[in-house]
């Protein structure tokens, strides 16, 4: 299974190789979607892939190391009332989460494919895309 989480950590935790431990000790595939770090700590958005049990244990490991863990169901949201279905977002989306449905002429947003990179946010002329993390 796959799970997206937002991690908040203190500067101390930033010195622990937490992603490496998730990979080696908890057998998870880790995809880093966003990472920011400064003097007051850091934030990271990860997509974890592995057995449900391993993911649970991995998250417990993070919590025991003082890392704030918040699971997210969605990283980017589209406001369907605002979207004009122009499609400008399609060619800049690196994961093809935005695609064109030739039959309806609409732009389809497939959330499962979205890695919340945020490249679509300021590319959308009517500003229909919002990043939640």
């Amino acid at each position, binding site marked *: 299974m796959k799970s997206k989480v937002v991690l908040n950590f203190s500067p101390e935790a930033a010195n622990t190789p937490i992603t490496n431990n998730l990979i080696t000790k908890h057998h998870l595939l880790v995809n880093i979607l966003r990472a920011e770090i400064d003097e007051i700590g850091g934030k990271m958005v990860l997509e974890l892939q592995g057995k449900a049990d391993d993911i649970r244990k991995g998250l417990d490991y993070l919590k025991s190391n003082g890392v704030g863990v918040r699971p997210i169901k969605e990283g980017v949201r589209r406001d369907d009332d605002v979207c004009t*279905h*122009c*499609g400008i977002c*399609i*060619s*800049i989306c690196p994961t093809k989460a935005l695609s064109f449905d030739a039959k309806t002429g609409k732009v389809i947003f497939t959330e499962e494919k979205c890695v919340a990179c945020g490249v679509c946010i300021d590319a959308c*002329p009517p500003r229909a895309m919002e990043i939640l993390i």
Partner: protein
Amino acid sequence: MMTAEEFKQYVRSNGTKKAAKDVDIVTTGTFGAMCSSGVYFNFGHADPPIKMQKVWLDGIQAYGGLAAVDAYLGATELDDTNNMLHGGAHVIEDLVRGKAVRLRATAYGTDCYPRKEIDTYISLKTVNQAVLLNLRNSYQNYACATNGSSKTLYTYMGKLLPDFGNATYCSAGEVSPLLNDPYFRTIGVGTRIFLGGGQGFVIWEGTQFNPGVPRTEGGVPKRPAGSIAVIGDLKQMTSEFIRGLTFTKYGSSLGVGIGVPIPILDEELAKNCAVTNDQIVTAVYDYSQASRSRTVIREISYAELRSGEAAIKGKQVATSSLSSLYKARQIAEVLKNSIVKGEFSIEKPVQTFSMDRALRTLDVRTEKEAMQ
């Protein structure tokens, strides 16, 4: 009565001769960013009256160099901070949505207009006129933009990723009004059109009207060519077809929906309206080339652009549109239905456009050179 897409299908099965006989009108549509748009207002007179010299609507300056309480708000106008998320276009959308906007005006005061300032609210319910008046809309074909440089470009064609990372285009292609009547045989001054959800008219050729560009065998311009200047009552319009848009690091623009009915006068026009995306081509340009005459990288059909990928400089590049095909189709459908219901009448142009126009450029000239 058919939409452009239905008509093309009909021609495929029945040929142009039969189509010309069986079909009276083909409806077309487009929805895209149209920067050369704006609204003129008459606010009504204040008491004591004011001859407005400087006018702001929700902080966006409108041109007030007209009669006392007339002003024109342009879609791309920004406030002093250049906040692109809220330009003239967004104020126009707010008004269309029924919102009240703050009107501020200052004046030097005259004997007949003694008041020197006013700060109030207006809405479409309070003003005498609010009229959408657009100088260049519904371009007949447009360029395809890509970026060969090593940094992201923010343009009116959207975000262009480095190293030919993507390519964008802006035409509804085979559904687009002016591509279905390439020589403006039925579209001219006085043509009634669908405009922003209401009814409007073509009032003149659009600015930069340039019909002399290279054309395909079928007569379709291969470069940006004609366009139309249009007018319509903003009070009739809806936010579905009038939208404030933001192009990051470029500015604001107005998303406008336009639909034009094309009467099938003869088989020639049926042939024109039968045109499909594989027969409409445009040129791909590298927008990192900072020149008014960029080099054409290649010509490309809208069929290829619509496929989502195009071969540019030996690379398969993701393509996408700035023009909403979904809304273009919706407009063609709405227009068809309102003609069928008798709510929309077809007008013969009172004057057609001259096809003899050349595009002039702006160069730094002396006074004498400018008069030659």
